[in-house]
């Protein structure tokens, strides 16, 4: 995994060097850049005359030290940009993740338990729609109906003038979170439902019933517990979204998060920003894999080490 993550950042790095924009400006502050005599010295010092591989590792090293470089477009230190935008994305994605995960687990359980019942059918419709409708369209539709026509919610942005506390800001969150949650829900439900269905047919459920346990206990204690596995994996791999941002939803609602940052950066080929963000995403993926391994060992005792009892 790690070499792969590095590989992606390396590719982008090399690609950035191919672009006509002088990368020097990405590594130095605008003040230093304004003085032309400095430039040659800086160029040498920052290793621009070194072979490209060395430059790449230098860049990585700088990242480790916390120096993320500067945005070519705005001249701002990238770390600042991230600090500014990250909370917004975290808010949005975390809320949507929590909501969609909980809902999908519950709905999946109910739908799987009452196979053929109303919940089951509804969830299948939702899943079918989910893959056909682009998620940002849901956002647009919601915006139009709820915000513009019904004036129930603000029409975008994260904050209105004068709002300070979280509770005041809350109305702004509702529609974007709803949009993202619906989009995630559509995908997750299919997995949770299938997982439940798979588990329900397994033998130990029969054993549980043969003990005379009430159905709700069978469902909750036995079926649900064992169907969590694959779902957890899925959710863990959605974590990179926390960094990558829900680009489209942020665009629809003008949400000032990482997604918006990425879009802006791509529009003007602001390589430094893109490189940093992609590296962060790659790191998030690594982190997510670790989480998956940990979760697996918690959920499934067979994964833990143990001796056989004869």
């Amino acid at each position, binding site marked *: 995994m790690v070499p792969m993550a590095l590989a992606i950042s390396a590719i982008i790095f090399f690609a950035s060097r191919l672009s006509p924009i002088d990368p020097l400006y990405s590594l130095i502050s605008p003040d230093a850049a304004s003085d032309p005599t400095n430039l040659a010295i800086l160029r040498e010092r920052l290793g621009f005359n070194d072979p490209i591989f060395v430059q790449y590792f230098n860049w990585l090293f700088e990242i480790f030290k916390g120096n993320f470089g500067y945005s070519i477009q705005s001249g701002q230190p990238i770390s600042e940009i991230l600090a500014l935008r990250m909370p917004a994305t975290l808010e949005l994605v975390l809320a949507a993740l929590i909501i969609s995960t909980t809902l999908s687990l519950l709905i999946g359980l109910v739908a799987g338990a009452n196979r053929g019942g109303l919940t089951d059918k509804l969830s299948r419709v939702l899943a079918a729609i989910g893959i056909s409708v682009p998620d940002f369209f849901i956002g647009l539709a919601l915006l139009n109906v709820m915000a513009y026509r019904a004036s129930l919610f603000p029409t975008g942005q994260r904050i209105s003038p004068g709002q300070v506390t979280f509770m005041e800001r809350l109305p702004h969150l509702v529609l974007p979170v709803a949009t993202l949650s619906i989009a995630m829900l559509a995908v997750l439900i299919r997995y949770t439902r299938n997982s439940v269905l798979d588990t329900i047919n397994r*033998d*130990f459920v029969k*054993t549980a*019933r043969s003990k*005379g346990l009430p159905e709700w206990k069978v469902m909750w204690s036995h079926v649900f*517990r064992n169907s969590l596995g694959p779902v957890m994996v899925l959710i863990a791999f959605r974590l990179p979204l926390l960094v990558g941002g829900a680009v489209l939803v942020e665009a629809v609602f003008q949400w000032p998060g990482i997604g918006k940052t990425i879009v802006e950066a791509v529009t003007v080929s602001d390589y430094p920003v893109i490189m940093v963000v992609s590296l962060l995403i790659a790191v998030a993926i690594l982190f997510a894999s670790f989480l998956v391994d940990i979760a697996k060992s918690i959920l499934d005792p067979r994964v833990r080490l143990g001796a*056989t009892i004869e």
Partner: protein
Amino acid sequence: MKDVNVSFTVESSNLHILRDVSLQVPRGSFLCIVGESGCGKSVTAQAIVQLLPDNGRVDSGLISYYESGKATELNKLEKFGREMRSFRGAKIGMIFQDTLSSLNPAHRVGRQVAESLLQHQNLSKDEAKERVIELFRKLGIPDPERRFNAYPHEFSGGMRQRVMIAIATICEPDLVIADEPTTALDVTIQAQIMTLLKNLQKSAQRTFILITHNMALVSEVADHVAVMYLGRVVEYGSVDQVLRSPRHPYTQALLQSVPSLDADKSVELKTVDGQTPSPAEVTKGCEFAERCLFASDTCKDRVIPLMTFEGNHQVRCIRLDEKGNLPKPDKAGSNV
């Protein structure tokens, strides 16, 4: 069980799995239900506790449970209702075949056994734990205190089966149904488990129903034997009657095909000619007629009733005379 019919729906067609099955199991006796795979023996067990899969149901018949003079019609109870559930685990215990998949891999073993106890009796968690550990000890699970907290995959096959037996018997049920409990185990362990089961039955005067396709096991433990073929009981009697003087052609063929240590090794193993038809085929007469050496034309025409001979030896065959003997075989015997 009286005239019980069970069918399954597979791909929008009905498979008639159990046909007019009638069985009587006296309290404290050991019944073995034998037959080939697919003859419906497991389904019989499932039907008793109403644990048929979603696509199966009891079409007709009566399954009654008798205790202290009262009869409860089991198949009329609501499948997951309180009354039915009060039978499962507490009065009827079940032991399944595949222990690895029949135990919840994510729960500790002790908890799974105690779960049954806690469901039916008003005990504290500690009391339940003690009982479970005691039962483990009695069943021959070494180091029971530690094993209480172990997971199913940490056990060997034989030990796991003891856990399953613990689950089935912890509430001291009067009836225990074991569905091929030793088929997945190797021979030495098989013997251990069978001895264990027989002891369990004898010591508490429990009623036992053992389902198996292994005739050798039957001779060791059974009081009575019921032979099933394609969803019907074709022969029923005491273990002596069925094993020593089998009357139904199928039973005879089954017994002949069991290899025994002192058989004449120069003679080839006898097998039954032909293949077991699938339950989807509906036959008018005797299901075994196609492969039967003694079959006549009437055999294929009518529904064959169960005939009773001395000592309550029941056989479903019309080719038997009053003394219960078969005529000379019509087709040549096969030795392949």
